[in-house]
């Protein structure tokens, strides 16, 4: 189908998918074994206080009415109030988002660079020692528990060797807040010290997050290269004497990268999966550590807000990837 039709189709389904997500989150939030009213009122609250809270928050309404209220609130941006910070959850999420985005972006970049490069190398030198070694390396990276890898890296590079900082985003005071993205802020305010510190701090978390994603990317790219190399078009080009150099670096590369772009949605999902534990271990003040803290505080609303946020991010990224892929493939949506 044409590019416009594809975009329209994806956008059309964006809303219902979001709605479905909201429904699931709502159901989960109401399946709580502990009475939310009692939780909000506090441990030593009386029955009257709990009842007052129940009425105040509409928790005694029928479920459908509650759902409609919930939708209404969510669209207006009211995700409830965090039990822990006493702030609106949306505010909390907005404050934490830049840190996670920074990390996710850095990890995506690293994963793409390492993964695609190694995948191409492995694909071009199929069945050689290099290919086998890379195969073992990738399959091992995918078998390691991300939180364990994070811990061991931290233990080795921070605690034992002292090469890199233990946790956090930056040493001392962060640069003046302009965008919330430390790297951008440091560049804007020309704060070299902060920039360097931020770089050191982001290294380990990025590496830990990127490695499993890089391994997956490498496998996909390798398969893409191999498929391209054995395609009839490459066969024809070789028969017609096109130099191998041109065939590989112009034609095969393009086909392989196309295949990789298609898989970026999957890669991002892997990154989001890892972000929760990696942020926890490195005390990275992003959405992931917010979620974990909320769990420990039994802050149900905050966890639901986090789930919603993550879902929206993933759906959006998938949407963008689909649109991008359709845009750069001359066949439309192949």
């Amino acid at each position, binding site marked *: 189908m044409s590019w416009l039709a594809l975009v329209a189709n994806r956008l059309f389904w964006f809303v219902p998918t979001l709605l479905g997500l909201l429904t699931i989150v709502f159901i989960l939030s109401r399946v709580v*074994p502990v009475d939310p009213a009692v939780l909000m009122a506090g441990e030593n609250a009386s029955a009257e206080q709990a009842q007052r809270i129940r009425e105040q928050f509409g928790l005694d309404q029928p479920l459908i009415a509650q759902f409609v209220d919930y939708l209404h609130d969510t669209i207006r941006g009211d995700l409830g109030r965090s039990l822990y910070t006493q702030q609106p959850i949306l505010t909390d999420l907005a404050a934490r988002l830049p840190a996670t985005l920074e990390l996710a972006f850095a990890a995506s970049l690293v994963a793409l660079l390492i993964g695609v490069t190694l995948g191409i190398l492995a694909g071009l030198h199929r069945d050689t020692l290099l290919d086998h070694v890379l195969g073992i390396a990738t399959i091992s990276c995918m078998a390691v528990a991300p939180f364990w890898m994070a811990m061991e890296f931290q233990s080795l590079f921070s605690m034992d060797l002292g090469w890199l900082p233990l946790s956090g985003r930056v040493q001392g005071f962060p640069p003046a807040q302009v965008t919330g993205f430390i790297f951008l802020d440091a560049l804007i305010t020309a704060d070299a010290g902060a920039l360097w510190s931020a770089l050191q701090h982001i290294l380990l978390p990025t590496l830990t997050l990127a490695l499993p994603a890089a391994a997956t990317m490498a496998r996909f790219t390798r398969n893409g290269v191999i498929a391209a190399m054995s395609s009839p078009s490459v066969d024809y080009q070789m028969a017609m004497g096109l130099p191998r150099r041109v065939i590989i670096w112009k034609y095969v590369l393009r086909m392989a990268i196309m295949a990789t772009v298609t898989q970026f949605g999957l890669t991002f999902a892997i990154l989001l999966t890892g972000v929760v534990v990696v942020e926890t271990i490195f005390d990275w003040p992003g959405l992931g550590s917010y979620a974990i803290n909320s769990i420990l505080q039994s802050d149900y609303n905050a966890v639901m807000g986090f789930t919603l946020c993550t879902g929206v991010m993933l759906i959006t990224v998938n949407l963008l990837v689909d649109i991008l892929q359709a845009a750069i493939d001359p066949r439309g949506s192949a």
Partner: protein
Amino acid sequence: MKALAKRFARDRIAVTGLAILGLLALAAILAPVLAPYPEDVATFHIERRLLPPSAEALMGTDRMGGDIFSRLLFGARATLTLTTVAVGAALLIGVPIGLIAGYYRNWASDALMRVSDVFLAVPQIVMAIAIGQTLGSSAENVILALSLTYWPFWARLVFAETRSMRNEIFVESAVALGASAWRVMVLHILPNIASAIIVRTAIGMGATMLTAATLGFLGLGVPPPAPEWGRMIAESRQYLPDAWWYSLAPGAAIFLTVLGFNLLGDGLRDILNARIRRRR
């Protein structure tokens, strides 16, 4: 079947994977016999806490003085059982749904797949955390969380394969000959998509195990004092880098198990794909 087994034996990757898993299963089953300190699953010996590996404690002791090696073996039971049940449940729910939705071409099928898509819109671990936190930590809830977040993947996969098979001649002729929907789905379509399912199951076991371990790490898994690899790693955190053995043992155990599943899956894919290619 014999030819398949022969091919399997020649594929070193698959055999290695199977060997690892076999050893692990054996270790799990024989845990009570193999463990030098089987009572350490529940009892504590504070005086023996945080000892490095030695002849008495092959992998050292943990913060409660328990022998890590013994707890590891029993943890294998918990982990393997949990993962198997969760993946099994996800298959039992997801595969039939995918088959039915793929076979019938109506609004209900599309709606069902949209529901799956919604579940797949959130990373599995996030949804599992949300569910686990809501319901509380126990083995049953972990299984519930894992299978609830995994079945949509199977439904989607089987749906896509069934839909493409639906147009094949052998299916159309079976339908024309009057075969009931059930017969077509189970006797005709299912065997042909079986290899895809088998390969993904092997790899899925590994992925589910990692998710289960992550839940355990976050405190949402099997509650203490029962040994669970993920939680053991979480416990070890505050004693690093000195008590290096404390995190290394369970971490390596997880790594080996998932590696085993991945190798098996890879090997199976090579074998079954070759078979499909030759048949075509």
